[in-house]
């Protein structure tokens, strides 16, 4: 390997220098804490008690504890259910439908529809969570409407909490998928669809054989993004149910929070965080695989 010519090196230093402070800040305030949390996952760090005075290395004990805990499995299952219902099915399908519908509709309808959907997206997570809590709670607006119509009342926050928070997450997150798909659909040349129409393809046929294949890369990208986003949803669920009742809506981020901060087991909590990262990585690999097969 030859050394870079002095002039080139000088230029590299000159160009790189302005990035220096930002790089240092990133290292100190982003990568530092991340490295610390990876380390903490292998210690008995805690908020109080012996682990707070002098935490020490415990090897894989935190991970072993997780794999022996019913609460952990419960959270993994709920996280998968939540991601499947609210992101992969809900936000994704609804977003696509809205995008298709808006492509065909009048400009005024499109603007109005877009504003409503994006309005939900713009709301802070906690506000959205509180709105849904106020809607679904025992004395909430939905029950007032239902009993006004003589239809009895619901108690989903208690009986079906994971479904309740999933619906809220669909409501809140659909705008993102809709925007991604709107952009993708606008790239499809109208001529292709018209040609298919002339050949006598039905609307459904055109969707399955032309539109979807043409936006498949956007579908994968969108799935990837909303999956990762949904895996780490915390504020919405915390506001609506706090993970309860019991542990019936305790997804991994809520389990992690409860273990780390309510129960003070920081080491165990960070171990859960790392496993959540792994769940995200598994999803990423699956989508990545699908894209690879697709482009070959």
């Amino acid at each position: 390997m030859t050394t870079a010519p002095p002039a080139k090196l000088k230029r590299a230093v000159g160009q790189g220098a302005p990035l220096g402070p930002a790089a240092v800040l990133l290292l100190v305030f982003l990568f530092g804490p991340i490295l610390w949390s990876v380390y903490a996952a292998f210690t008995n760090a805690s908020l109080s008690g012996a682990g707070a005075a002098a935490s020490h290395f415990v090897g894989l004990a935190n991970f072993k504890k997780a794999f022996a805990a019913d609460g952990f499995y419960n959270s993994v299952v709920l996280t998968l259910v939540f991601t499947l219902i609210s992101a992969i099915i809900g936000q994704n399908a609804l977003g696509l439908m809205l995008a298709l519908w808006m492509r065909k509709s009048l400009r005024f309808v499109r603007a109005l529809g877009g504003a409503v959907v994006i309005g939900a997206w713009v709301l802070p997570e906690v506000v959205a969570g509180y709105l849904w809590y106020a809607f679904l709670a025992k004395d909430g607006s939905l029950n007032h409407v239902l009993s006004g119509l003589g239809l009895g009342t619901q108690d989903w926050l208690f009986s079906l909490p994971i479904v309740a928070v999933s619906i809220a997450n669909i409501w809140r997150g659909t705008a993102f998928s809709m925007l991604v798909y709107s952009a993708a659909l606008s790239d499809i040349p109208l001529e292709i669809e018209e040609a298919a129409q002339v050949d006598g393809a039905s609307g459904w046929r055109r969707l399955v054989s032309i539109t979807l294949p043409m936006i498949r890369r956007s579908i994968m990208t969108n799935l990837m993004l909303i999956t990762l986003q949904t895996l780490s949803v915390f504020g919405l669920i915390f506001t609506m149910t706090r993970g309860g009742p019991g542990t019936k809506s305790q997804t991994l981020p809520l389990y992690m929070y409860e273990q780390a901060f309510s129960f003070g087991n920081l080491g165990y909590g960070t171990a859960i965080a790392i496993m959540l990262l792994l769940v995200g990585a598994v999803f990423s690999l699956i989508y990545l695989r699908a894209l690879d097969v697709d482009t070959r």
Partner: protein
Amino acid sequence: MQRRIIGSGCLALGLGLGLGLTACSGSSSGGNTSGGNATIKVAYQQFGEGKVMANFLAGVKTEFEKANPGKKIQLLPLVASENDYYTKLALMLRSPSTTPDVVYEDTFLINSDIKASYLKPLDSYLAKWPAWGQFVDTAKGAAKAADGKTYGVPDGTDTRGLWYNKHIFAKAGLPANWQPKTWVDVLTAARQIKAKVPGVTPLNIYASKAAGEATSMQGFEMLLYGTPNQLYDAKSSKWVVGSKGFLDALGMVKTVFGEKLTPSPQDATDANLGNTISQQWLPQDKIGIALDGSWVNNTWQSTGPKPWPQWSSVMGEAAMPTQNGEAPGKVSLSGGWTWAISNKSANADLAWKFISELQTEKNAANYAVAGTQIAVRKDVAADPTYLKANSETPVFTDVVKVTQYRPAYPEYPQISNQIQVAMESVMTGQQTPKQAQQVYDEAVKGIVGPDKTTTQ
């Protein structure tokens, strides 16, 4: 391009998670340092409308600042529910830049925080403090750690029992002078209220994770300690697992929630339930019986959040019975809070001076009356205003004779969390008492080690 998007997605998730946990848990920088200057920061819990402690501290602060020119007291009310208070306090105590000087610590948590080296031993101060001789022995032991040193000055204790509303009892055809002998008697009364007084919640037993230590102590332990079993076997120094009493206590919870004798699950899992009961439901004749603490009537004093002068004629008190009336027939648990000094405080001497100001005979008696505490000092116990206030709740004062204490070892807070998990899972019907007990037993073995447990 796709790969890059995916890569950055993963990174973003990683960053979010990593930061989420570490931002709060690392030794954080920032915050104002107290080193060198003469400001004492005093941290205490404040939740809901209750201002008894805030008013008391504000009074002592004025007094202290007048007597010590140039010294300042900064009151730091941590506005949080019980569990969140402990979390926040622990986070503050971790770093010299955020630590308060004087902290208000619950006796069940103090051993855990002592083990975490958060607190300073007070022995050198106590040795020179004449008032320490006034404290009864159990109180002196309340904040004494395994190392033999004392880390906190208790400001009172409490007992637990049943509060009942005589208006509702009259409507349900129950006696105004009620004293159940067994758990079944309590259930019978609650069922009678449910049948005869519609729209009223018959009974509350705390059973949610959100209620924190109230669920463990007022709820679960008040039941468990009325059975032949306990949490900890003092003889073998081991934690008890798999006991029948534990199962029966959870069974009682299942019964009362299963028969809907209790607040609705949504109310029962609300962190604010305790305040709702004392400030609204009891004064408004909306709940029949509340298994709660002796301090509840501080809510209704003229200094409390919901002044209710008629309380002493409307509210009745009864001791909580043992399961089947086993001797001594009634059960109570006692806790209490202490004033302690942070190990990282730069002004420990001044902090001590403030604590001793809080604990002059006059101030200690004032707080005992306003906070409806049970005195732990002989001079306060003989104070006429205290005696008068105390005579209004004879039952809660009487159960001092039978009251018991939590096994407040360093592991207790973690075990208490597991009790709350078991209670909520039974309350919501997610698990049977048997299943919840198995989960608890496994968790306890994980916390203290299998060799430190016994089946009694």
